[in-house]
């Protein structure tokens, strides 16, 4: 292992120096890019650690809010701009996709599902912009000076995707109770009519919990793996080689946003329709 490191050190002395400037981190000296699986705190607000992914999420939310504000203002205008029609086209096509699953209930659920789609999509694509992950700042923690990226793709942090999964699954339960009534909905999980139904109910509970896990790990894994892929390809072949992978990541970001919101739609439609 150490021999291998020395060989790469001598052969890549130029690129090694460049990376040294960017990340003179800790004990790693091989020039291999530093990849951290968890988001690093960049500053503290009182007792609360603000991580770089949270910071990115705030920026994305502000952009999201501004776009939504501009859109909602233009709805009332008589002469609308191209921006409005462009967004209308996007929202209409998402609406049509959800309509194929939810039918006449789409109108009620669309604000939530569309927000999932756009939020996940913006977060995924914001993580691909130049500067995210490569602008470094110095922080002092436990007396040691560390160099961490200022921005980090928000869905490359497990906390964010876990929250998204929890919100999605909780809203599925809420809509189930709302549409079917508490007694009918809870019967799916606690059914004492016969032993088989009782064990099926236990399996249903397990499947609800595993929905959270599969939602969060799917999104996190895809986006984080994409970031690692881009970093490593840019490290191996510095010129132009990462371009096709960047296109792939744009596609993956779109598909993951679609999958997240579509799965929520499918689960909601399963929860609000009566079985038997």
């Amino acid at each position, binding site marked *: 292992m150490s021999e291998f490191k020395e060989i790469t050190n001598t052969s890549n002395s130029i690129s090694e120096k460049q990376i040294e400037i960017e990340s003179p981190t800790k004990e790693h000296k091989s020039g291999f890019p530093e*990849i951290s*699986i968890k988001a690093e705190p960049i500053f503290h607000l009182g007792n609360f650690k603000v991580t770089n992914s949270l910071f990115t999420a705030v920026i994305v939310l502000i952009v999201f809010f501004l776009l939504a504000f501009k859109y909602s203002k233009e709805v009332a205008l008589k002469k609308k701009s191209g921006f409005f029609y462009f967004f209308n086209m996007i929202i209409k096509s998402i609406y049509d996709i959800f309509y194929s699953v939810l039918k006449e209930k789409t109108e009620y659920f669309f604000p939530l599902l569309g927000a999932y789609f756009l939020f996940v999509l913006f977060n995924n694509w914001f993580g691909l912009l130049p500067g995210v992950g490569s602008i470094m700042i110095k922080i002092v923690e436990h007396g040691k000076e560390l160099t961490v990226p200022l921005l980090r793709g928000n869905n490359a942090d497990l906390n964010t995707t876990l929250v998204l999964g929890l919100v999605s699954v909780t809203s599925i339960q809420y809509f189930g109770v709302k549409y079917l009534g508490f007694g009918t909905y809870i019967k799916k999980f606690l059914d004492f009519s016969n032993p088989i139904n009782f064990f099926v109910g236990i399996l249903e509970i397990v499947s609800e919990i595993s929905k959270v896990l599969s939602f969060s790990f*799917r999104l996190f*894994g895809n986006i984080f793996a994409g970031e690692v892929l881009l970093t490593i390809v840019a490290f191996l072949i510095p010129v132009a080689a990462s371009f096709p992978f960047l296109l792939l990541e744009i596609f993956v970001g779109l598909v993951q946003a679609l999958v997240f919101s579509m799965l929520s739609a499918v689960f909601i439609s399963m929860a609000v329709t009566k079985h038997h």
Partner: protein
Amino acid sequence: MTADAAKLIATALSIAVGAIGPGIGIGMIGAKAVEALGRNPEAESAIRTTMILAIAFAEAVAIYALVVSLIIKFT
């Protein structure tokens, strides 16, 4: 075998073994989707949406393996 070597082997094996099943699964999904498309070309958009969803489900298993191997590698 040193701890480093064991770590490297575990990283490689977890993604290598974990990618076999999803690979077969995605291949079958694609084959069946093309078959359905040949039988019923008008239903292209519905088939495509369903196929992408099913592929994402199958792919998720490979992604779990990838997350495990990344955790082994970088922690």
